[in-house]
């Protein structure tokens, strides 16, 4: 039971990073100067994200629901100790989701309001991505102190520091990289394709730098990610493989193999998540009182059984409908044929 739930959390997290992350990344890309390609870029992003952003967003809600139903103590610990980062994330999610829709459906498309929407969409995407990374880092830092009475110790110290910020930057770079790679295949405009390729190359570089920064800043941490990392050969292997996949990915890019390029980028995310999992499994959160593991914190079986049942039955509905969504919007342009 617990394993199935953890699998659903992991799968949802992966899909949220890949699909939702690309949406965040698209917003970040729109902050970059676009020159005369600005309008074309906006159009491609509108068309690629429009039909899917709400569904992509659901993976996060799924994680929240599984946590509060199946692992209530993990959920409440996070909601108390990481209250502020979650609040910051929520503000970002509210702004970016609504502004993206407003931009598309505003009946009067004048430059000034459109530019304002685009800026807000970009900034809130960047903001949310940063906080997601900060939250991710804070889970396993060992700084969450449920017994603290001091305001700083209880509500700021868990997420404050250079290390969470570096992870935030790293996550931001992942999202922007995914978006760039993903968008290459979404347009037929050669100039725009080239622009997205250059973005991907840029974020490839910044991923390596910010990844290094994550390791470097982890020396200031108590358990320290890097020292932990060196003790786990599978994690090292995962990172080496993920890095090696860059070479493969760029070959696919130059051969214009859209699906394989996307598969390579997804593979990298899978490997990074696996590496992370190897270091901390089966713990979801590490507090000053020790780890909160999925096994120890699970709700009674009477609760888990219907939850697993709901998720499995839900999958029967969700996955085919998602497949249909992708088929309708991603299998080339049917627009011409239907006319």
């Amino acid at each position, binding site marked *: 039971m617990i394993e199935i739930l953890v699998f659903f959390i992991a799968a949802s997290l992966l899909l949220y990073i890949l699909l939702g992350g690309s949406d965040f990344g698209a917003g970040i890309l729109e902050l970059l100067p676009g020159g005369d390609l600005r309008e074309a870029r906006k159009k491609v992003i509108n068309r690629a994200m429009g039909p899917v952003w709400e569904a992509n967003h659901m993976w996060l809600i799924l994680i929240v629901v599984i946590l509060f*139903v199946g692992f209530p103590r993990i959920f409440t610990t996070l909601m108390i100790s990481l209250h502020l980062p979650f609040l910051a994330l929520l503000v970002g999610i509210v702004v970016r989701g609504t502004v993206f829709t407003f931009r598309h459906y505003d009946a009067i498309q004048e430059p000034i309001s459109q530019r304002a929407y685009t800026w807000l969409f970009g900034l809130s995407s960047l903001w949310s991505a940063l906080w997601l990374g900060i939250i991710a880092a804070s889970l396993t830092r060992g700084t969450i102190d449920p017994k603290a009475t001091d305001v700083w110790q209880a509500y700021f110290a868990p997420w404050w520091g250079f290390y969470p910020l570096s992870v935030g930057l790293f996550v931001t770079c992942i999202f922007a990289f995914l978006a760039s790679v993903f968008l290459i295949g979404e347009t037929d405009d050669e100039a725009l394709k080239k622009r997205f390729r250059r973005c991907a190359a840029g974020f490839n570089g910044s991923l390596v730098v910010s990844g290094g920064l994550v390791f470097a800043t982890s020396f200031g941490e108590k358990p320290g990610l890097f020292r932990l990392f060196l003790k786990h050969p599978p994690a090292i292997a995962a990172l080496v493989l993920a890095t090696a996949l860059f070479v493969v990915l760029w070959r696919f890019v130059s051969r214009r193999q859209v699906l394989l390029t996307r598969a390579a980028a997804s593979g990298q995310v899978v490997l990074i998540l696996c590496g992370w999992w190897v270091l901390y499994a089966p713990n979801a959160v590490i507090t000053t009182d020790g780890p909160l593991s999925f096994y120890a914190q699970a709700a009674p079986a009477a609760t888990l059984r219907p939850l697993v049942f709901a998720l499995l039955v839900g999958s029967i509905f969700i996955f085919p409908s998602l497949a249909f969504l992708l088929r309708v919007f991603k299998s080339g342009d049917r627009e011409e044929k239907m006319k």
Partner: protein
Amino acid sequence: MDDLTAARATMAFSLGFHIIFAAIGMTMPFLMSAAHYLYLKRGETIYLELTRMWMKGVAILFAVGAVSGTVLSFELGLLWPGFMAHAGPIIGMPFSWEGTAFFLEAVAIGLFLYGWKRMKPWVHWGTGLTVGISGFVSGIFVVAANSWMNAPQGFEWVEGAARNVDPVAAMFNRAWLHQTAHMQLAALQAVGFAVGGVHALLYLRGRAKELNLKALRIAMVFGAAAAIAQPLVGHFAGERVAELQPAKLAAIEGHFETGTHAPLTVGGIPDVETRTMKWGVELPGMLSVLAHRDPAAEVTGLDRFPREDWPPVLIVHLAFQLMVALGMLMALLGALFFWYRKKDRFPRWFLWSLAFATPLGMVAIEAGWIVTELGRQPWIIYGVMRTADAVTPVPGMVYHFFLFLILYLGLAAVTGWLFLRQIRITQRKFDEP
């Protein structure tokens, strides 16, 4: 503002904000599908224009509903960790089903909004209808979760913790049916009246008359039918509240003293200090009849409960009176709508009344939720856990409150502004022959 008050204010405001968009998100697609159906069946392009116009509204309002709903799923933990630690595993089932239903809704809306030229017309129509159905179902699940807080079941409370959890019994608790029926009907009613009212106003102002009249007729069929059925469902809900939460019923009616042949007070201001009702019109024995179907039946008053277990009587009573008054008015307008629809002409005074009735359904929904939620106080889980014991230990909740107050008010302002722009553009297009 102390932290508990700020947390409650935040929750009230977040829910009050979300419920409007949720109501629209789960019923407006039905209106849209009806117009779309008429277009596909009859091939009249005016229905296509109407469908597309409503669709744009649905897209904007759905996005606001989706993100404010996301906020709420976190707020449950951010504001009430003491509640979620115990309640999560017990009422998780409706939430996990709600997740599934909402997921389908999110997929379906993507298909519908962007799939006009990518699917066969009737398949595309089906995706629009799926938005409505899955939204409606997800609404039922969320309200079922709330109903458990009023009628907690499916667990044993032993030394401050839940034992022997039975999620199925918790979900199908004794309040789920009347609460979901009442709310889903209210959503149809409020959205029907809101949409119908806006189109009535535009019609009266002489804009795009044919389009607005057709729009009004579709919207009001839903609104009027729901409004006529609602008093019956509401009465059923009242009977259940009398049985399940006598303190809430007593607060609703300002009924201070337990007794047989209890009168129903229409209007009036309850005075908690003197434990009397002022300035109300008393209908002898009617409360006993309504609550227990017998004029001689005893109706429990607030005197049976310790003072610290009373809900805020004044506000619950006034909110209830407001809801019932608006409900009656809408039922009357609903009946008149069908009458004039049969005669196939709507007098101007009636259209003006509909225009004035635009916000009434939404106001009634807000008033109804004030009754439900404040009427349950001081409990978060009725009779089991107090709201004060569930609140987060995080200090400075007042900032949290103002943050969301500003964010949501800004969002509401922008949404309103977008609608005005949308209406202006569409109507201008139709005014030109």
